[in-house]
């Protein structure tokens, strides 16, 4: 029996040596190791062996099985590896083709600027106040110390609807509305973003519709130095730590003293360039201490509180910030223009 087993091992190993393919390997496994296979066949004759012989032959049988199994396993693993390699080869793709795009749209550049400014001031403790775009003459002009026939009304030609109702020419009426709503209480710290309208022929730098952001702070002891401090803080958050401000005396009917504010040119850092016309400064803001008459109109006693206000044009800041050359792009909404703002 032992000889038969040894012969079987030799035969099996011989045949496995020449195996070609997975199918044949499976067939050989069945042929030699299967329930009705050759090995089982031989071992079935163990019944006729003596008690001494039985364990010896059993061991030989196991050895033969193990030897055949080991070779089959080996072959099997080789086939598996080959198969995997083939699959990976097949699955190879062109990784330079573009990926599946995530959708990306843009917040309108004007609102991008507004949101940035809002965030800065909200962080400084301001609320965002809003008001109607169609206003009364009272809120838009009279309450802001601009009585009818005031020469300063020449500064802004307005879109009137009736004699008393017009498109607001500035966001300042929101200041009056807010003050009135406060019923004389302070402090007030607000910024007012919004659309405004002035009769102006459209060109690269003028639009009859544009956006402003104004700020107002009312309190028992608000000083002009606080205004300077606030504006400096704002421009450094908006334009970077190196930004400085310069105030020049000016005139607005609703503030006294009044100032125009220049900020260090963001393009050249103040050395002088084309954008700042070689001055190193860009004019971006108007501001001042709120005129006592305006405080009175807002329901405050100018002997009890003082206030400062400031205002800026959103378009101007966006033009400067993004280097845009034509203000009309903001309102024609060419997608090739807007798409450029679809990023952080």
């Amino acid at each position, binding site marked *: 029996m032992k000889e038969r087993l040894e012969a079987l091992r030799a035969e099996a190993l011989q045949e496995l040596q020449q195996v070609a393919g997975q199918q044949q390997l499976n067939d050989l496994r069945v042929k030699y190791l299967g329930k009705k296979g050759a090995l089982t066949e031989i071992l079935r004759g163990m019944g006729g062996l003596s008690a001494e012989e039985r364990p010896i032959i059993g061991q030989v049988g196991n050895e033969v099985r193990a030897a055949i199994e080991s070779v089959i396993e080996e072959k099997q693993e080789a086939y598996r590896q080959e198969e995997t390699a083939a699959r990976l080869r097949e699955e190879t793709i062109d990784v330079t*083709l*573009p990926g*599946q795009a995530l*959708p*990306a*749209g*843009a*917040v*309108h550049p*004007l*609102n991008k600027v507004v949101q940035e400014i809002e965030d800065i001031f*909200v*962080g*400084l*403790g301001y*609320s*965002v106040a809003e008001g109607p*775009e*169609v206003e009364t003459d009272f809120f838009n002009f009279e309450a802001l110390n601009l009585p009818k*026939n*005031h*020469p*300063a009304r020449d500064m802004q030609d307005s*879109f*009137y*609807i*009736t004699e008393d*109702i017009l*498109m607001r020419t500035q966001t300042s009426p929101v200041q009056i509305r807010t003050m009135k709503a406060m019923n004389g209480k302070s*402090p007030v*710290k607000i910024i007012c973003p919004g*659309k405004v309208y002035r009769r102006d022929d459209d060109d690269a730098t003028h639009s*009859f*519709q544009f956006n402003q952001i104004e700020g107002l*702070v009312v*309190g028992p002891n608000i*000083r*002009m*130095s*606080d205004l*300077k*401090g*606030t504006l*400096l803080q704002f421009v450094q958050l908006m334009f970077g730590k190196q930004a400085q401000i310069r*105030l*020049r*005396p*000016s*005139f607005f*009917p609703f503030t*006294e*003293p*009044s100032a125009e504010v220049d900020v260090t040119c963001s393009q050249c850092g103040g050395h002088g360039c084309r954008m700042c016309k070689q001055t190193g400064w860009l004019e971006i803001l108007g501001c001042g*201490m709120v005129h006592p008459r305006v405080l009175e109109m807002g329901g405050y006693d100018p002997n009890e509180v003082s206030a400062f206000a400031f205002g800026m044009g959103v378009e101007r800041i966006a033009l400067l910030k993004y280097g845009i050359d034509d203000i009309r792009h903001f*309102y024609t*909404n*060419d*997608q*090739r223009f807007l798409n450029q703002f*679809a990023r952080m």
Partner: protein
Amino acid sequence: MKVSYQWLNQYIEVTDMTASQIAERMTSGGIEIDVVESLNKGVSGVVVGYVVSKEKHPDADKLNVCQIDAGTGETLQIVCGARNVDAGQKVPVALVGAKLPGDLHIKRAKLRGVESQGMICSAKELGLQEKLLPKEQQEGILVLPADTPIGQPIGITLGIDDEVLELDLTPNRSDCLSMLGAAYEVAALTGREVKLPDTSVMHSSDQASSHLSVTIEAKDQCSHYSARYIRGVKIAPSPLWMQNRLMAAGVRPINNVVDITNYVMLEYGQPLHAFDASKLEGGRIVVRNAQPGEMLTTLDDQERKLEPQMLVIADAVKPVALAGVMGGANSEVTEDTTDIVLESARFDGSTVRRTSRQLGLRSESSARFEKEVDPGRVIAALNRAASLLEKHADGHVTEGIVEAVVSRPEPAVVQVSLPKINQYLGTDLSKLEVEAIFVRLGFEGSIDDNGVFTITVPTRRGDITRDVDLIEEVARLYGYDNIPTTPIEGSTTPGALTKAQAIRRELRKKLTNSGLNEVISYSFTGPERAQLFPALTSNSRPIRLAMPMSEERSVLRTSLLPQLLEMASYNRNRKNYDLAVFELGSVFHTEEETLTALPNEKHRFGLLFTGNAVQASWNQKAQAYDFYHAKGVIEAMIQSLGIDHLVRYEAAQPEGFHPGRTAAIKLHTEAGWVAIGYVGQLHPELQQKSDLADTFVAELDLAPLYEYADFAIVYKPLPRFPAMERDIAVVVDAGVEAGRLTETARETAGELLESIRVFDVYTGEKLGADKKSVALSLVYRHRERTLTDEEITELHGAVVVKIEQTFGAELRK
């Protein structure tokens, strides 16, 4: 206001400063200088020459050969083509080597064989502005006065070695519309003295009052009228220096009388007028309102129809001037004039402003009166002009001033305390520092023991009426740069966005992250556009601007969609075919025909899709936008606001939309289901008119969303028991809406139905015409236990039956 540097030096000594330095100082003091312009446009080597002789050119009819004495020690031969050149004249001579504007170099030359050692110049060739030249100088060579010194550099003769500061004045600083005003400002900024001009006249025994009387009838519109009567004037060109200064200020010289009135106006800011006394009837000046139907031809030869509220200067019979605006041709000073009435008055600013606007007639005079002139200078300016007329027009100034005075404003007295100044500015100024500033301004005053300044403000500074005005003067002279920067003191405030603001922010973020671009369109539109979508305009009448810039932008938008369509067409014309955009903005509604109250401004959300949602690519086909893209955006918005359970969509046919592809967006409010907007396809006709591809739009009111939005996220425990899924497919009439099927299923199944989903909609011949199959997947779950098979079968069976009964549906096997 144009301020000549040389002229300014007549009133304040500033020779140690350059024009640019003065400009810089004034700008930092609050008066912006736009430009500092050099009057010399590139002239050098030009001197005054004397034409010794003139002979015809031997070979050229139009040329003359002149012998010139230009003070060079030799006689120069110059060929000149000007017709007006003549022996005995003084003329500007460009010597060999001279330069003229336009980079012109003068060289020795031969003209038709005759040598020419230079060139005789015209005013234009010297760079003088043509429109400012007196008529006689606009053609030919410039002939200079006979007493001009030979050899004098022409820059001195013509006053062009000078620079002009152009003041960009804010409306409060009309005091600087004069040389003296500018001088006072520079004095304040640099701590110098102002020298006033000579106003003296000789005594006369001839009394002005025997020639003239003055009456003010319109006492509200004229507070002071003064006049002098001047006899025997000789009309002639004014002295060259005066002409030079007028031209530097942008005023064209005319003759000595007119020039003097203009000169004094520029000096004092007080407009003056000279009448030919012989043309005034009755020896009277009356300041009155125009009478109905009165006409007046003004000096610009325009006949003007006068309105009753306009103010005129009249003689005993007729109007002779539009007060403060322009004189009348009927009393104009001409070459024959000998006696004049010189007027200096104070007219009401708003009257002048109104008249000037109504007639579309602006003048140097009206520009000054509009902003109110200094009451303190009415007489000084009158006397100054009289004095100049005496010197430069041989005038005999009769004795005395004829005047009528309604009121003569006193200088304002304003108080401000030192502590208030320092508290207001955040400074720590001493009493001495502040006092020094007031002294520099030329303000007189005193300070008491409590630190209160009592300041008498000169009438020239009519803009200063209260304490803060004085504080501003202190601040700007102290220097805004010197004011410290401080943090705000006192209680802090929390900053935050309101709910509505936060919602708009979040929508903007969500939609842009989903690939939509935000747009901002114009609030003005055309009347037809405003009516395109009546369902979105709540029957509002478009609100019309009183003076629109164009018909296309003449009314306020009543809906966002017309603006989005305009934007889409604009983009399509630029080959941007694929659009996914939204806008957050206001529309304006009213029921009134003429506004008496502010309109209802509604915050709206607008949406537009057109073209492809997916571009054709190497791995996918192009996919066009359809209704469900637009609806999907609305659903996503509604869901993110936490109110999807309050919203339903119903088929609707609003005007402007595709009647078969539009839904009303309805919100469940206390008042029931209310349409807050529409989502749908643009009506094909409108689409064609706008030249667009298939376009899908939505617009809805934001106010209800602000109100109902629910930001509270409440966690629900994850389910512990398994769910059971059942699918059904039913055949129904094509008109049955899937939404109604799911609604019915929900109602029938109650809370055990966890979710329901439409996973297939099929139409085909097999089903028959007007039929469709809708496949639904229902998920049932009990939160507390496992549902039994029997329970599900019973419940699901009920759902099926209900659907069959309600919609005549047939279960598909």
